């Protein structure tokens, strides 16, 4: 791509300065993880004494089943995202292009469910999962995660679809495609951008969620739950908590970096030209 214009310098400078504020606490987490706990009690910026050690990095792997938790996190967040990515466009298509009785009230119910706090799910679902033997099964959290995501995911994809060139859909219909075919072969391939957005948001959300996995899972716990176990009641173990925090935050960051490109790719597809 050849740039017709040369970007000015100030956007970079402005964002650079702002991001400094964002980076500061992140540096704090990293510093806490590579210095002995005693030294950082007065704040990680305090450098009266300064020792670098990877002790906490070693300890936390030895003391806690981090690999298992990481794998559980990946399974839970991955499957939850997949579920949302696949289901949201179906609902969104129906709400964007189809006409059926009960459409408005269903849409309203669905999108306004966003105010429902996680807390209310706990007891009813706990009882239900126990009765069907789903406690400690990762699907006990994946199902509510996907269900809760419908509120915003359907809304998000539908918002994108209403701007979809209707001529394409009409053309598909003229070619004799039913709605399911149209959805599958015309709309879906062109809705990769909002689907990627749903996936990434859902991933982040479920990756860091604590309450449901904490209560519904026993052995198959994801990283955030393990994090609460590292922090003892009376011994804070900040250095090890910092290590686990870094490990927990790195995956979403990688996903973000990857999807950055994906967004751009989806965009050039839509405009029908290569940038």
């Amino acid at each position, binding site marked *: 791509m050849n740039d017709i214009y040369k970007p000015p310098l100030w956007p970079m400078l402005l964002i650079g300065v702002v991001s400094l504020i964002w980076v500061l606490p992140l540096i704090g987490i990293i510093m806490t993880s590579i210095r002995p*706990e*005693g030294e950082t*009690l*007065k704040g990680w910026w305090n450098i009266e004494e300064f020792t670098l050690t990877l002790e906490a990095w070693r300890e936390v792997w030895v003391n806690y089943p981090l690999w298992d938790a990481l794998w559980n996190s990946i399974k839970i967040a991955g499957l939850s995202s997949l579920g949302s990515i696949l289901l949201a466009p179906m609902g969104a298509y129906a709400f964007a292009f189809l006409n059926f009785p009960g459409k408005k009230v269903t849409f309203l119910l669905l999108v306004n469910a966003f105010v429902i706090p996680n807390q209310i799910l*706990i*007891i009813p679902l*706990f*009882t239900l*999962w*126990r009765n069907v033997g789903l*406690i400690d099964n990762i699907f006990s959290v994946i199902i509510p995660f996907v269900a809760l995501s419908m509120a915003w995911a359907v809304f998000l994809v539908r918002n994108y679809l209403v701007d979809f060139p209707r001529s394409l859909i009409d053309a598909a219909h003229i070619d004799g495609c039913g709605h399911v075919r149209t959805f599958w072969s015309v709309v879906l391939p062109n809705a990769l951008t909002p689907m990627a957005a749903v996936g990434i948001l859902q991933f982040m959300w479920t990756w860091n969620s604590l*309450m449901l996995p*904490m*209560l519904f899972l*026993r052995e198959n*716990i994801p990283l955030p*739950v393990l994090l*609460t*176990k590292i*922090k*003892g*009641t*009376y*011994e*804070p*173990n900040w250095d090890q908590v910092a290590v686990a925090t870094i490990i927990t935050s790195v995956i979403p960051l990688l996903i973000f970096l990857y999807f950055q490109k994906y967004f751009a790719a989806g965009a050039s597809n839509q405009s029908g030209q290569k940038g």
Partner: protein
Amino acid sequence: MKFVNSVLSGVAVAALATGAWAEELKGELTILNWLGGTEGELIIALEEAFMAQNPGVTIKDINPSAGGGDARAGIRSALLSGERFDLLLNTWPSFEKELIDAGLLQSWDGQWEARNWSASLGDSWRNLATYGDETYGVYFLAGNRSGLWYRPETFAAAGIEGEPQTWDDYLSTFAKLQANDIQPVSIGARSWATTEWFENLILKSAGTDYTARLANHEAKWTDPEVTAVFDLMRDMIEANCCEATEKMLAMHWPDTADAVLRDGTAGSMLIGAWANQRAAGEYGQKPGDDYSFFQFPAVNDEHAKTMSIDGKNWLLMDGAQDVELAGAFIDFVLSEEGSNIIANLNIATPSANVDASKYDPVVAKYVSMYKDADVFFVMDDLLPAELSGLFRTSLQKFLQDPSAENVAEIQAALEAKANEVY
């Protein structure tokens, strides 16, 4: 009742003497274990040692993780969902009471007499978990909540000799410390740490009986005894004991430990045994030399022996599969071997079978007091949760405005809440 117990115990002792040693224990025991950190490791160590002794026994742990800082969330959802387990670890007497009222627990009395646990645990420990005539909890961990932590060096430098014995002694240290540019006391009021002051003052001024009545709402929050405690706290504040109000409200106990024990910028602080773990573990200080504690000074001589404590006990679930096996495990925890597993981790146990030489000097000092002390469980944990919430915020309000008028309002509000929740 007593008769039945002694008959039972006679039978059981005979059984123990004849066949119990030979008979191998078998079966499975399920424990709801929500503890983390060192205490969590302790439970696992106890379980493993017991299983090593009894190869026929398997112990299964259920670990509900602590939700939002309150382990009761996990315990309640486990109970609500019909999760089956035999033993539950508990640290909140008010929760214990709730479980008993809901018919979820059974009494330990049969096992207690049969296995003669009174030889290991004094009566005051048994009373802490006795409701009506029946005992529902067996304490195996206990911590001192009446310790004022300080650095002997700081006190010596200010010319304070010996530990303050009375409240007046204690107040008289303030001027000496201030003359040395030391803030006499550090209080962290962001969360609950102020309640420790109220609790110790009411114990030392009005005694355990009155405090028990207040906690059960048989005494009123508007009583002069309660007003007197606020007056004592006001005396402290007026003597410029502590940080400015906003600063107290911004600090939690670790901040005060930093000031008193690590930095030596303040004289003393009141908190449970965690201060010991923090000082030894995180500041790398030597217990007894670099830092120590003295017991909360006497306000009314009559109640000088009162001591606020916290602890963890074992509750026996109503649906427990094998009460004998559960009893055998508790017996092991209280035994010499079990107690020493606890002591090896420098955690205080009230069991008389412990070898106190395994403790550091600080823990040894308060464990030695357990025998004679008039112990009382931390009052905040006895209050119904809702009243406890108001109790904590009321003390924050008091710090914001310690005037007599405000105290009257606070007392009236507490009394009104108490009327509503009991």
